């Protein structure tokens, strides 16, 4: 009789230990899964900005759907344009960070001509690498700066650049577009909306098959060592994603 009870208690002990072992693992898994979910939620990219299809256009590659996209670059957020405040590093002081607006995660249609118009309100900061003062990858290798068509601008007069480049996927078409953004003169006076008169850049390029790409500004406009810190190293301000669908 006592035999059986001791048997029973030992058996109970075994089961209990087993359950607690499994429980420990489950708790660990729960912690990891929960924090992954939290972090993804915390670091969500800004709402996607889709290019609008406005018809078809004749291109070197024949008639393609024509899509347009309007972007603006603000020197710093204001009452009229709040600007982004995302990312894990919200504690870092973001006063005076320039940013692309309305969004930095873009979506473009595949196999079509895309025309991007940028209203640029920020001042100049010399670009390290003169390569990025030239226009690359657009139709005809040119862009229109305030209506004037050029292939490059003065490196000392570049405010930012819009540079799309390759995602590390060998299966998707190579895609590279880089256009410098003309700077506003330092003595330009502000208008009603609190910003000076915008410089307008317009350029078109042809997208290939669907794929994921990223873009960022190549003109050091941040802070820290060689001005590539701060805003230049944060998603959602001077860099983002480009999805071709």
């Amino acid at each position, binding site marked *: 009789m006592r035999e059986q009870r001791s048997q029973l208690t030992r058996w109970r002990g075994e089961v209990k230990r087993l359950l607690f072992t499994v429980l420990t693992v489950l708790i660990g898994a729960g912690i990891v899964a929960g924090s992954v979910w939290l972090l993804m939620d915390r670091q969500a990219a800004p709402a996607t900005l889709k290019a609008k299809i406005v018809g078809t256009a004749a291109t070197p590659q024949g008639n393609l759907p024509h899509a347009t996209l309007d972007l603006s670059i603000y020197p710093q957020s204001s009452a009229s344009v709040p600007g982004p405040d995302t990312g894990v590093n919200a504690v870092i002081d973001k006063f005076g960070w320039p940013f692309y607006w309305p969004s930095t995660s873009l979506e473009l249609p595949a196999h079509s001509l895309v025309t991007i118009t940028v209203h640029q309100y920020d001042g100049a900061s010399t670009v390290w*690498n003169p390569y990025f003062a030239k226009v690359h990858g657009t139709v005809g290798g040119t862009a229109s700066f305030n209506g004037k068509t050029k292939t490059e601008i003065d490196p000392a007069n570049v405010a930012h650049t819009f540079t799309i*480049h390759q995602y590390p996927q060998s299966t998707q078409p190579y895609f590279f577009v880089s256009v410098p953004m003309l700077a506003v003169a330092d003595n330009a006076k502000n208008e009603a909306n609190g910003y000076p008169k915008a410089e307008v850049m317009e350029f078109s390029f042809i997208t290939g098959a669907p794929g994921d790409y990223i873009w960022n500004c190549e003109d050091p406009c941040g802070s820290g060592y060689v001005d*590539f810190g701060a805003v230049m190293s944060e998603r959602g301000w001077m860099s983002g994603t480009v999805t071709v669908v």
Partner: protein
Amino acid sequence: MSIDSQTPIDEPEVPTNRPEPTHRMKEWLSRPYVRRILLIFVILNIVIVPIAWLVVHFMELSGGPASSIMVELEKTVFVFTIVSAPLMAITASILIYSLLGWGRVTGEEPPMQESPAIRTNGIAVVAWVSATSLLATFLVIWGLMELATITSYAYGSTPANQQPNATKAIDVNVTGQQWLWTFEYPDQGKIESDVLVVPINTPLYFNVTSKDVVHNFWIVELGVKIDANPGAITNTGVTPDKLGTFNIRCAELCGLHHAYMETKIEVVTQDQFDSWLREQGGKRTI
């Protein structure tokens, strides 16, 4: 103090008059466990050596080798795997046999039956040390020779010293900036590109630098790798000998978009290269 001058730990526990070495060798080889371990050793070698082919296969998955340097690298990896296989095999076979052959003991209490008190064994020590030293020496010599070879492949075609092969080297200025590679052909009319387009079988000479932080310029299938340092120019070179498009990656963490700091190298024929130069507005100088 007397207790301090006790017997040293390597006291010889073997009789002073040993049998002749040949006899002892025969006797040793006749021991069953020795034979079994040797058997396992042979089997393991048969299992392990083929890994050498596997390793090289993995290295070639992405389309290489596309240069003589890469060929040398794969050869080195292959040889190293072969020569280190026996080391792994002997270790593994002893471990395996020790779990099966010499008598396992289980239970809660410290085992009563004790193992043979082998303090040391001069023959084993000498054999092991000489074997590992020989292995290391071989690896060093092989490595030094290979290093000399690939260095000559890389720099043998620099404008500095008269290169053996007739074709003049093409200089390429490689600039890393967060997070893009840009290439400049100083002798071809300073044309610039985001993709590295080069003619086949022509020596290339890279001047690599960085605009900001440390990057690492890695042409995977060509076996070229050198850091791009700010404030310094590093040089390397290669002669591509396979047509096709290969990967250029950044192999040194360089910030936000390090993972995306990739581009292509297109190895094309001389004619294609010339026409590419022309449409880039460059001029042919070779």
